[in-house]
């Protein structure tokens, strides 16, 4: 199993969240949005011009900035 930053995941790849870094406020926000360790997510698309990433997690679509996504470590599934 390969562990990478969420920002490095390729489009349409499914991954499992391993670890979350960053300030408490940020992590807490991720928890309440459903991004917790062991949750599954899919990278849906990267917005153009280095913009945020769109991910699907727990049945909802979220946008997250790339440098925030750097703080989320995921392992690619399958």
């Amino acid at each position, binding site marked *: 199993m390969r562990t990478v930053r969420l920002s490095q995941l390729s489009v349409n790849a499914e991954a499992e969240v391993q670890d979350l870094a960053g300030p408490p406020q940020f992590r807490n926000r991720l928890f309440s949005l459903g991004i917790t*360790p062991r949750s599954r997510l899919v990278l849906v698309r990267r917005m153009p011009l280095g913009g945020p990433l*769109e991910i699907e997690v727990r049945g909802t679509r979220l*946008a997250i900035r790339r440098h925030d996504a750097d703080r989320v470590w995921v392992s690619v599934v399958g």
Partner: protein
Amino acid sequence: MRVALVGNPNVGKTTLFNALTGAHQEVANWPGTTVEYIIGKVRSGAAGDLIELVDLPGTYALTAYARDELVTRNFLLYEPYDAVIVVVNAASLERNLFLALEVLELTPRVVVALNMVDVAEDQGITVDAAALSRRLGVPVVPTVAARGVGLTELVAWMERIGGREVVPINTWVVPYPEELREVLDPLASQLAAAAPGPGIALGAGDTRARGLTASPVVAGAQPAAGVGRFRPEWMALRLLQGDEEVTREVRVIPQGQAAVQLALSCCAQQAGVQVELGNQALALEPAVLERLRAQHEEFEMRIADAKYNHIANLLADCVRRDPLAKQTFSERLDKVLLHRFWGYPAMAVVFFAAFWLSFVASAPLSDWVGNGMGWLGQLVAKGLAAVGAPTYVQSLTVDGVFAGVGAVLSFVPYMAIFFAIYQLLQDSGYMARASVLVDRLMQGIGLHGKGFFALVSAYGCNVPAMAATRVMENHRDRLLANLVIPFIPCNARLGVMAVMTAAFFPGTRGAFVMMALILISLGVVAGSAMLYRRTVLPTDPAPLLIELPSYHVPSMRNILIPTWHRVWMFISRIWMFLIWATLLTWALTYFPMGAPVGQSYAAQVGHWLESVGRWYGFDWRLMIAILFGFVAKETTLSTLGVLYGAGTDGSLGHLLTQAMTPLVAFTYLVVYMLYVPCLSTVIQMRRESGSWRWTAAGIIVNVAVAFGLGLLLERVGMVFGLQI
């Protein structure tokens, strides 16, 4: 009976609220914040009009982190209510139930509204509401708020739950794993021992001091929940998660100190820290505190994890998913609207249409209102003349009172159209996507992606643009946007600029001059935003973590009701200021009685201001126009017309070109474009920033930049002997 509506953003709370209450609503305001909540009375049902419904801002959790989420949290913690309706989106239950569990831990007086079952169905998701209700221990009512489905049942449940018919639920709500229970159980019994009775009171009962209570609880019944009384289990969870507010409050209740220490020592133990926890645990070394903090977070994560595990179990029993072959409508639309190339042109088209409709298409309406008022004024003046009223009374009526009322009312058409479109873009789900598309660019100058629409719409009118900054949840991001918005020339300013440009720079040169002006304003916006970020607001824009909801066709009612509220709020706040200001300008130009304009008080003020204007080559008339433009920029052209003695024949342009050089005119345009737009903007800025100090600072910077840059241009131009 008072019932609160809570739920994630965009799940349909307001739709439900509007469907239940109709037009019987009032907007209340939280002191110190700009977030509103709305109160309405439920009209249907047996004892229908006894239910008071409160629509709270959308939230993902009940933690105390984000400032605006605090509105919902504070309401649920400290305000009186009899029941809570947790609205969840049936199509994304997994995430939505997280908040539902958090609320259930706080109070069992919950009715779950399983909304958007139609959307779920389209996505092949079937939810067994009865099973979910059994598992959660509270009623679950399937609804389609947009079509009014399920409302009767919801009201019936509200009445029963609010009327005390509550089945007590499992103490811990969520089956927390053994290792968490080992910590939680002793903590909860410690807390239970600390305060026997129905719950533990926090905040010393000073609920009034926290705001709200706009209207008294109906029917005189003692409300059942909220008001700062909590179950020990809930408090144990909060203490373990290191909730600062709760910890602070628990400390002051009898024996609370002991509970706080117990929580801390649990953390210390788990973190492997050896500390002696005296009465003042706060005096610990930073390094140790850091580790305790990390342990609190660890607990927080494990608690969240346990909730999601519980939810996964619930859903396994209650939700059936039929895999869909075809893509959902939202996915197909996003293929275009979020396309790496087509996304931007599409956004330009949407925003241009929004802009055009609100500020260009509405112009005739505004004119009609203005002309109508003028006509009415003339009519009244004629009447007054007929009964022999003195001339100054006639002038006061026409140029003072009616002009003032006209100034207020001419705002209404584009405010109404703008807010309606704004609401449409929000509700449909497009605004979230547009914010995401431009976030990177906005970040480059220190602004938040969600502020983009506000900045774009500032070209129409700064006032509603400031109101539109409210989508940003972070206070600093909002403040920054409000500080830079006045640098963006609004419709009224652009109009004046166009007339002057046409007079001084005929033909193609005019287009270039206009373009140069716009570029200057863009530069000033970007520069000042970056400067504010570096100096007084030194943080990055708040993380952009937003949901991209499925697209919806918003309902008419959902658009009209908030539009009406916003327009009304604007009018009711602004009219006094505008009318007084108009009366003042009238008096200044009219008195001393019988004197020509050149000797009026206004002219005297202008001559006095000319000492500043001389630096720029502005004569007293231009200075007066700048000053009076503050009341409403729309009046600038007519002020200049009066001062230069131009008739209505369009000779103003000619007169202006004789009065100054193109360089002076260009300088004037720059100053005019940048300096504080108008009184209404200042009032709106005060309202959005919540502080007179920030408002004053913003205006001082604004005026300084406008005049500073003007001077610079003038001097540089002189040096180069520029004749543009």
